[in-house]
């Protein structure tokens, strides 16, 4: 099973975010609640936590790229506990 990492909503007026830095690389283990990526919005740079424990298998938004909120930006394989 894989869990998708969604670009979060941070409140009114923030409709897109840009990856400033991935804190994990593909193949890395992450725990649920562990910071996985830094996203820059118009208001701030904020860390996004992993929604599941497992292995980061896909990154869909590279550093410097921008996407709308609610977009899928990564996948975590949580079958490899």
């Amino acid at each position, binding site marked *: 099973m894989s869990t998708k990492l969604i670009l979060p909503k941070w*409140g*009114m*007026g*923030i*409709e*897109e975010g*840009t990856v400033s830095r991935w804190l994990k690389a593909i193949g890395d283990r992450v725990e649920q609640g562990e910071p996985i990526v830094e996203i820059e*919005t*118009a*208001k701030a740079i904020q860390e996004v936590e992993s929604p599941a424990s497992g292995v980061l298998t896909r990154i869909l938004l590279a550093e410097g790229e*921008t996407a709308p909120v609610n977009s899928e930006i990564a996948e975590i394989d949580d079958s490899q506990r």
Partner: protein
Amino acid sequence: MSLAINKPRPDTMVQMTFLDALVQAQIEELERDERVIVMGEDIAVYGGGKLVSRFDERRIWSMPISETSFTGVGIGAAMTGLRPIVDLSIASFMYLASDPIINQASKLRYMTGGQVKVPVVFRCCMYYGSSLAAQHSDRPYPQFLNVPGLKIISPTSPADIKGLLKSAVRDDDPVLIFEDTKLWPVKGEVPTDPDHLVPIGKAEIKRAGSDVTVVAIGGAMRLAMDAAKDLAEEGISIELIDPRTLKPLDMDTIMASVAKTGRLVLVENAHRVANLSSEIAALIAEEGFESLKKPIRRLCAPDVHVPFSPALEQHVFPGKAQIVAAVKGLM
């Protein structure tokens, strides 16, 4: 006075977002002039965190939920020696604030025969296209265009929001700023000069061209720029104009462009009945009719409320494809 003249003018530029430039402009004006104060609700939440942490309570006034009266308080303070920036956060709150803005701020200089001046800035953010439904998605500047005595600006670039906000604070008349949240993350080069001023009442040609004049207002500018790039690849040359100031409108720039191209597309996200495009179209019809090769095209939000569901809302505001199609339709 001599201080300002002798001060070195740094002409360095720095990359920043529209929202950062907006906050930067306020910080610089608060530091420059102790008569400047900021008044608003939850200022930190709506992008002003740096203001709250930097200045004390005598300069940054956190308001109770009383939009009508705190707008009037800003006007009264402006008439008695301060230069307030009244932050109304969400544009829909402008309706509550409209009585003091229209009946007091816009009229008092005239009604007193010039005895008083009202140097106040009213800011608000236009949120739309993000499922906030009709009461939080308004773009209400057309209502205020019909009020004599106001100046209204809606800049689209980081350098312009900085320069025009500063001009607004230093202006002796009431100025309304309609900020489009679609522009918050836009990055651009911004002069670091604390006296970087963009004049109120001057449009800017964002892109020179020869085939079709496109006038885009507020957040529509982002899409219009993308559309102009795409059309250039197809050999269609767009002259893209940003009015920047909506009142008083710089019609000379628009008129001169239409005289050159003979074709005009107007793009804005306000509802189409009696909006800024209507006024521009009317003025072109009155004074620039001979220049037109084709009918004027207006792309605006239709006369319907902004719905909540994304499935419906996506049909309300003009997109890049419609701009491209409208331009091609005139060729």
